[in-house]
């Protein structure tokens, strides 16, 4: 008697950018691969700019996705528009593909709630800061879709640190019981701020956390956007077909600081960081694309130029957005402001310093 469990591991592109024999049709899908490549680059260009804005006092604390671009991009590219995203705070790579604008992400980290009023991704959840709580929201949304027989799937992201939180476990366990149409992606970037993954859990993998919930768990090379994308596509299809949830552990590395408020040199061996750069997802895909003739130097130059220009335009839009007024604290607190709170609103107005300066 007894029970046996297996956690598989998927890698389609080696760190050197060579496709494995089992890579399948995706390895030949130049159009898709270029789309993924562009999106990853756009995320990286944005991240660099956002960090620079913070350094010059034009943005609040910011969490860059540097090195983990393949995860957000690979997953979001597998989603249908009517699917739903429940992001963490490091998933703008995915959010951009969902239609969230760079300006919105900047407004959010610039301390302006209007950044969460996504003009395009109307149904997607906003950025979630309390680590792991977004997984329960994702499960509830997935339940709603299932109940209404809408063929929609929810994808959510959580960190390696977050996967040790009770909220992650309770939500995943419910998803298992309810066979909710859900994909939980663990961005295992090796660190929860200064806490290495090995101090977070004794589990050999994070994918095996799915076993506790009776859910399928898989490991993928999170620096291999092909593997991420294929695993996400399979999980989303399974969920859409009523096959229930999947956990995907995507193994990557946080090449930057935790946020701009962090200084990783305090706790991280520079050698580790150097080694991780050798596995990073963008140059890996570039090597493959170049070798296949799917991508050349000119395209590269054009892409980086385009990303830079686009980001600059959005930054300008962000910087010229007038600051919110004190009324905004009271707006949308309830559908209708309780009359007794009117006095507070007026007090706030009375004491508001010259409102109206931009985010710069």
């Amino acid at each position, binding site marked *: 008697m007894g029970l046996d469990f297996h956690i598989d591991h998927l890698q389609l592109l080696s760190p050197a950018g060579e496709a494995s024999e089992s890579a399948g049709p995706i390895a030949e899908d130049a159009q898709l691969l270029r789309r993924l490549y562009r999106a990853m680059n756009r995320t990286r260009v944005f991240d660099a700019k956002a960090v620079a804005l913070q350094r010059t006092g034009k943005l609040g604390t910011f969490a860059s996705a540097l090195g983990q671009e393949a995860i957000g991009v690979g997953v979001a590219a597998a989603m249908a528009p009517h699917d739903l995203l429940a992001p963490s705070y490091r998933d703008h790579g995915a959010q951009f593909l969902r239609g969230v604008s760079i300006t919105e992400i900047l407004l959010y980290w610039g301390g302006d709630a209007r950044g*969460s009023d996504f003009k395009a991704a109307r149904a997607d959840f906003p950025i979630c800061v309390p680590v792991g*709580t977004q997984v*329960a929201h994702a499960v*509830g949304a997935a339940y*709603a879709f299932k109940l209404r027989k809408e063929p929609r799937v929810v994808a959510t992201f959580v960190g390696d640190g977050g996967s040790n939180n009770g909220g992650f476990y*309770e*939500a995943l366990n419910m998803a298992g019981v309810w066979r909710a149409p859900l994909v939980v992606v663990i961005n295992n970037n090796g660190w929860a701020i200064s806490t290495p993954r090995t101090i977070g859990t004794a589990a050999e993998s994070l994918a095996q956390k799915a076993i506790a919930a009776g859910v399928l768990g898989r490991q993928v090379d999170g620096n291999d956007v092909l593997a991420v994308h294929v695993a996400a596509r399979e999980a989303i299809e399974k969920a859409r077909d009523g096959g229930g949830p999947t956990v995907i552990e995507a193994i990557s590395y946080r090449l930057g600081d935790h946020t701009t408020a962090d200084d990783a040199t305090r706790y991280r061996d520079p050698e580790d960081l150097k080694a991780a750069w050798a596995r990073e997802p963008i140059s890996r895909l570039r090597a493959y694309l170049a070798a296949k003739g799917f991508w050349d130097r000119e395209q590269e130059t054009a892409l980086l130029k385009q990303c830079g220009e686009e980001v600059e335009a959005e930054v300008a839009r962000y910087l010229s957005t007038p600051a919110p007024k004190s009324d905004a604290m009271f707006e*949308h*607190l309830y559908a209708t402001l309780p*009359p007794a709170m009117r006095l507070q609103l007026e007090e706030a107005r009375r004491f508001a310093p010259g409102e109206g300066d931009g985010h710069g």
Partner: protein
Amino acid sequence: MAEVTLVEAVNLALAHEMQRDADVLLLGEDIGVNGGVFRATNGLLGRFGRERVIDTPLAEAGIAGVAIGMAAMGLKPVAEIQFSGFIYPAIDHIINHASRLRNRTRGRLTCPMVLRSPCGAGIHAPEHHSESPEAMFAHMPGLRVVIPSTPARAYGLLLASIRDPDPVMFFEPTRLYRLFREEVADDGEALPLDSCFVSREGRDATVVTWGATHYDVLAAAEQLGEEGIDIEVVDVATLKPLDFDTILASVEKTGRCVIAHEAPRTAGFGAEIAAQICERGLYFLQAPIKRVTGYDVVVPLSRLEKQYMPSVERIADGVKQVMEAQ
């Protein structure tokens, strides 16, 4: 029109809204086949099916969290936390998400959910089954906090809570669940969520109260009436947002005020009412305010729970104190 208990009134309201609105669904521990440990959801699984009456795993944080996800997608989840003593793991989702989702997204996503939970002592229940945590929630911006004191108010306020477009904490005093019956027309008429109820008019002093204590205040009112003291009883019912005007008008009339509640005194919601009187009704007061409440101790196990709760005697004594003071 039938005479029903408070827990039956809760059941009627749930059934009514589930029938009327396909977006309403229930979730919680043991609410299905078992009909809830107090039978508040009795019969609803049979009528509305497993998909809308969900027996959840034992996970209060998860229950609150998934309810938020459902609500954000337009469902109207009514989640049950089996006892208020087990609501604490759900607080994170309530304060960090349920109460903020609308504000955070500038109205793009909303959270029309109700979190029901039996509360209070007095039924000889085991440890942790006698909590009165309402003040903690009344401190959280973006929430509504409701506690009914009679079957009719439970029915009307629960309907209103389910229909409200924002999250509502709905606490049901277990001691009242089967204590008395009252005529309740199952007519789908909601009661307002922004008013206190004047349960008894009186001249001499105002007693502001809510929940199970309301019952004892009315009993004290009878006793005091026989002694020639005529008290006005205000049932707060909706603690947040607070209809302070009704309280203020009463205190203006009587000039004296007792606040009675079962939760521990310090930083209980009675403090907020006293503070507002102090701010806006100071000159009406002919005597210091008196709070008659649970003591600042851990709710004791059942052998001492009567000594803990604000009894009819303590309430009457409190009124006499404010009557004597000059």
